[in-house]
């Protein structure tokens, strides 16, 4: 038997994590709140929901040329919104690209939090823990910004965090300490994932939940590209023009069996346009 805390369908009502959807949540809860409940099982407070909504806007980076979004469009180019949407989701569940990286960044911050313990106000102790963490991990995910000097989403999150007082959170302060070291000593700027990790950890989410939340809060980028591509059904997406493809594989050759057959029958080789024989 499998237990679930998610939901139960009743006559006249749908339970959702202990709440009555129609009786309690309708009119008070938002899409963002329902998603957060889906990830963590607990209903966010109004303040938390506002932060999550702000995050959803900050991570709304939907340029179709961004790799997971490009593949979303490729698969949706035959007209199915859901096919491209699902394909895009699959491509980002990992530590390389997309907001799923947040969880890996969060794990580093959580490790730092454990190491620092109650010495958060002791700058020397924090600095020593930061250096030990960097030495231990080598690369800390959530740092590094391609193609531009800083991550505009991180800049926006920093401004938002400052305005809301989120920058007083323990994990945010640890991120600042870590960034101080990596940016100053190694020239690697922070990206949005470490910022999301800090905010979400300070809100009480576990590291693995931060990946899921950050990802699900960014769904607009997949939805928009899947919908547009499915509507367009672009022939260029479905099939690239030949001038945009090059072949770099093995040169045309004859297989051992074709060669043997040809020798047995003494048949002349059939020559291809490029002059090499085929069977």
């Amino acid at each position, binding site marked *: *038997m*499998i*237990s*679930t*805390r*998610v*939901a*139960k369908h009743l006559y006249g009502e749908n*339970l959702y*994590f*202990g*709440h009555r959807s129609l009786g*309690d949540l309708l009119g008070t809860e938002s899409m963002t709140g329902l998603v957060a409940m889906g990830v963590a*099982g607990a*209903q966010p407070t109004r303040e938390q929901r506002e932060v999550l909504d702000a995050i959803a806007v900050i991570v709304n980076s939907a*340029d179709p*040329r*961004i790799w997971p979004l490009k593949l979303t469009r490729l698969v949706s180019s035959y007209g*199915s919104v*859901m*096919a491209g949407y*699902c394909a895009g989701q*699959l491509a980002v569940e990992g530590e390389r690209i997309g907001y799923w990286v947040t969880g890996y960044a969060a794990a580093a911050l959580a490790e730092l939090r454990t190491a620092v313990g109650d010495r958060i106000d002791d700058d020397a102790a924090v600095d020593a823990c930061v250096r030990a963490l960097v030495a231990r991990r080598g690369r800390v995910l959530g740092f590094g910004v*391609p*193609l*531009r000097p800083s991550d505009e989403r991180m800049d926006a999150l920093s401004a938002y965090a400052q305005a809301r007082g989120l920058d007083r959170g323990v994990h945010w302060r640890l991120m600042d300490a870590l960034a101080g070291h990596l940016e100053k000593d190694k020239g690697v700027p922070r990206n949005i994932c470490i910022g999301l990790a800090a905010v979400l950890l300070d809100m009480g989410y576990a590291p693995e939940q931060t990946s899921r939340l950050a990802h699900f809060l960014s769904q607009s980028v997949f939805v928009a590209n899947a919908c547009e591509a499915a509507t367009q059904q672009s022939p260029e997406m479905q099939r*690239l023009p*030949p*001038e*945009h*493809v*090059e*072949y*770099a*594989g*093995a*040169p*045309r*050759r*004859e*297989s*051992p*069996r*074709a060669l043997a*057959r040809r020798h047995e029958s003494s048949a002349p080789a*059939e020559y*291809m346009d490029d002059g090499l024989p*085929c*069977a």
Partner: protein
Amino acid sequence: MSTLADAKSPLDSVEWPTKLVARVVSPGARPTVHGYDVEGDLARDYSFAETVLLALTGEAPEPDLGRAFELVLVFAAPVSVVEAPVHAAVVARACVASPSQLLGVAALGLAEQTRVLVEGLRGFLDALSGNIQDVAPRYCASSDEERASVGRLRAGLAPFLHVPGLTFDLGRTAAIVAALHACGLRTAEQIECALSWARLPLLLAEALAAKPGSHMQYPVNVPAIVYEEQQP
């Protein structure tokens, strides 16, 4: 008047390649696989399984190797409705999924199942790539039934291919992976692909045999899922 649409993007700051590179299948009217002409060569002299092995390894297999690979794929093919990928595809069929949706569900479930399966055999795969001396108990047969199955695989392969791993008392899955490894698939990702591909046809056949739209005949409480009351 310039607009935001004209503004530069960081993505415009890079000189990107202008061509997508094909490495296995040559595009065009007369395709090749790793250089071998599909229509005039492979289709005449190679089985479909051999073409797959060629595609994954880059080399046209000898006849015995091709036959061995085909035999292993047939051993790997059965995946029944007790397993999540088939179960999911049958549910999709009950929901009147189109063939493309069915294929998507099936392929995804299968890829996940295979990923976990191969992940669990990672240590064994590493051992196969070295000089295998011993096999951890978790990779060994757990019943006489399983031992008999591996015996049939061993006997089937014997005329075509020596599989070093099959000298041990392997479980069925480990034995299939050992045989795929002996066929030239050395990496976990090659083996994942071969296993998923081998299983997909029978999975789809099972799903297609279910009646579309039969959701009221689907045993919704198998397995049972029970709601756990919690305070909001």
